[in-house]
Each structure stands twice: as C-alpha cells, then as structure tokens.
C-alpha cells in the first residue's frame, strides 16, 4: 500500500497464540500485582484519628509572641505591614504608660493589631521583617467561617497566652542566625 506520509503507523494484526488465548497467565500476573499492593506501605492516613505531621517549614496562621517575662514583644513598628505583599496587616500604636511595664516590653506597643486572613498569603515576610521577633507563623490553621468579618484576626486571636504552659512553640521557625542574633548582648532589647 502506498503511504502518503511517514506519520502513519502500520497497525500489526497478528493473531494471538494459544497461551494468550486462554488468558489465565495474564490474569494471574495481574492479580499478583494487585495483591502485592496490599502489603505495601499505605500512602493515606485515617485522618481524624491520625494526623499527619506538619513540615518543619509549614507556614500557618500568625502568633504574636511574648517574651520570657510575659511582655508583648510587638512595638508596632509597622515593618511587617510594609513588607506584606497582600497588605493584610494594619496596626495602631499607643504609648506605654507607667505601671504597664510588665505588659509591654517597649515604650510603644500595638494597641490594635489586625491581620486580614482572607488577604494573607502566608508568605512569611512579616516574620522576616520583624525586628523584635514578635510575629511568627505557626502550624495552626485558619478555620473556615460564615462571616467575612470573622477573618480579621485581632490581638485577641493572635497574641499568645501569658501562661508559660500554654506558650506557642516557634523554635522550629528560629534559624541559627536568629538565635545568634538573640545572643547579641549589644542590642538593647536582648539586655536583661
């Protein structure tokens, strides 16, 4: 037959042998593959009972950290907000009054600190920009809700509790460089 182009493929039309005609060897080899999968390691987990471990670099919802004495670290410098590519962060600063030294570490503090979780893309730039190690991304999730307004997380949602037992561990997110920075005694906020 004359081929018009060399793109066309000649389909083979060979007849099956007796071994192929009885189909049994093919079925058995297929079943061996199927049963071998039963004894393999499962790729799925039984979710509500078993929970998968988060990656060490997982970035979930933010936490506003307190220092060792329970004072808020955030000083409302606005660097997280200016670094935020989604413009999700807003804040209002206030001046610390005498008698509030145990609540706020610096002279200035964030009276209002809001993150719009609908805008947040969890890039972690706020954590990177923070000069006071006040904001960290955690393994917590942002839950679904019926109201848009409930996605604007204020200080009551973000701030970690004062109680030392309920503190949120962010040691995974602290890089060796950051820990070295914390040891730097020349920096005023590291001084005791």
């Amino acid at each position: 037959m004359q081929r018009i182009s060399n793109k066309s493929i000649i389909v083979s039309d060979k007849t099956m042998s007796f071994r192929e005609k009885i189909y049994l060897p093919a079925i058995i080899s297929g079943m061996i593959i199927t049963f071998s999968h039963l004894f393999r390691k499962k790729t799925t987990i039984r979710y509500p009972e078993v929970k998968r471990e988060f990656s060490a670099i997982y970035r979930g919802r933010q936490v506003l950290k307190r220092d060792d004495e329970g004072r808020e670290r955030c000083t409302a410098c606005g660097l997280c907000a200016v670094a935020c590519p989604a413009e999700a962060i807003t804040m209002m600063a206030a001046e610390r009054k005498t008698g509030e030294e145990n609540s706020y570490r610096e002279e200035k503090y964030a009276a209002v600190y809001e993150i719009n979780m609908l805008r947040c893309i969890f890039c972690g730039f706020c954590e990177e920009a923070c000069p006071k190690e006040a904001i960290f991304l955690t393994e917590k999730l942002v839950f679904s809700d019926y109201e848009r307004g409930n996605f604007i997380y204020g200080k009551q949602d973000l701030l970690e509790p004062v109680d030392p037992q309920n503190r949120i561990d962010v040691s995974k997110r602290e890089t060796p460089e950051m820990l070295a920075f914390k040891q730097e005694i020349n920096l005023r906020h590291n001084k005791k």
Partner: protein
Amino acid sequence: MVKVTIDNIPIEVEEGTTILNAARKIGGKIVPPAMCYYSKLAGSGGKCRTCLVKVAKSSAKDPRPMPKLVASCSTPVQDGMEVLNITSPEVIETRKAIVEFLLINHPLDCPVCDQAGECDLQDLSFSHGMANTRTIESRREFPPTDIGPFIKLHMNRCILCYRCIYVANQITDKRVHGILFRGDSSEISTYIENVIDNDFSGNMIDVCPVGALTDKTFRFKSRVWFLKPMDAHRQCTKCSGRVTAWMFGDEIYRITGRKDQFGEMEEFICNECRFGKKEFSDWIIDGPRKIKRQSVISASYYENMIKPSVINPIGEIMEETE
C-alpha cells in the same frame, strides 16, 4: 568665579562657596551627606564630620594635596581645586568610621522612633555604615522629656548637630534651650524645666536629623510610610503657609515643612500651621509630593491613583428604571 573639579566633574562657582555647596550645584550622587550643616542656618556645619572629602589639589597656584580630609561644608573652594568624594576609597572608609562614631551613643530604637523612615542618620548608616556594632559599652540613657506643649526631646537619640540651637537663635526671637556640659556628657536641655513655646520653635523638629526632637501631637500616631505626603497651603499671617500635609485617607496626621532634595526645609513654618491646623478643611491640597523611589515612604504610595467610583450595578439599574 572659580573653577573646581569634584569627582572629575568641573563646575564654576562664585568665590567663597564651600565645597559642599559646589557639589550640591552639580547634584546627584557626588553630594557629600551632611548631618549638621543646614544651608538656611548661618554658622551651622563642621560638627558631624560626615561631609569629609579629600582635596587632591588645593588650587592652581598650590597643587599640593591637603594633608587631611577636610569638612566640605566649611571649606571654601579655590581656583583649580580638585576634590574627591565618592571616587576616593579613603573618604568612603572614613565615612564608615564617622557613622560608627555617630552611632556610639545613638540607640537602636528605630522601631519605636517616630523619625524612622525619614531619618538622615538611618539613611546614612544604611548606605555607609556597618551592619553590626563593635562597641560593648552601654549607651547614654536619658528619660524622654517634654519641652513645651508640642515637642518631645529624646536626648539619647541626639547626635549634637546644634541645628536646633541655630533655629532658636536665628528663626525665633528668644532661645531658651542649649547644650549643657561638655564633651561626652553634653546634652540638649532647657536647664531648669523651661518651656519652648515660641511661634517658630516647631521648626526644630524638622531640622533635627534624627528623632531627638519629635512632634508630640504626632507621637506614635502612625509610621511615616503609611501616610501620604501632600503639598498643602493656607493663608497664614505669620509664615508662608506652604507645608507638607501627611495624610491617611482624608485625615491629616501631621504637618511638616516642605523638604528639598537635600533634606532641608524650603521654608520655615509657624507653630499654628504645624500644630494647630489638623483639619482637612483648614488646608488647600495642591497635590501629591514627589517621593524618591528608594524611600520607604513610597512603599504605600501610588502615583496617578484614581479612586474608583462606587461600584453598584444594581443601583445604576434602579436609577435607570425610575
């Protein structure tokens, strides 16, 4: 007219001009930074040493180089002078050391300081300084003090540039503050809790290169990069009334003078304009102010932004049917 060459750029200037002003006539990157010199204040300069330059050739008559680096803000030019600023590695190295000296007693509280974002020392140390500090000694600490109803003094941020002293001497009619003590322990003070309430005293805030003198009415209100600087003016009997209004939406957060490309105020403004008039209706807005792209203030600053008209398709349909 004398001819000088600054960083291989020749320029003709009048006799008696300082090297710094000659460089400012050329403009651009070769202008030495100045922390204490202020062209509008007579006698200022010569204190901070950030403007040090190398004079490779003193003049046409005496071609020897000057033995040491000279302060460009107080050295007059001579005919045939050859000056090296950014082309000399010695100057760059010295400037780095000068920044370190200026920062010996300057606290690293930029996150708290209201000046952050428009601070000359911050810019200077970012462009010329080192990333970390080598000193282990504790810095000087003073409690923040109120000098007058409008100005807050943070003495630990002061770099002793004397600009505010010159403002009080030359712009206001009576100076009530000054530098007390000497050397390492010098500090700006009113000595006995005195009140600075002169009509033009607010200009001290604008001339301060650091956050030592800050606006009490703007204290911790916002960060400068969240605000939009707008040129505004009003009829004022005391001053020109031409200011920069720092706005957030339709709210005016603070009023400052208009700063030129060298960070100096174009005109000094009175306290009534600066502190008294913070209503939108007090001012006529001329338009947005030009901000350098490199400045953090331009971070949330959109030029040519048109506010979208209210999007309400249902409303439009309803109006049509009526």
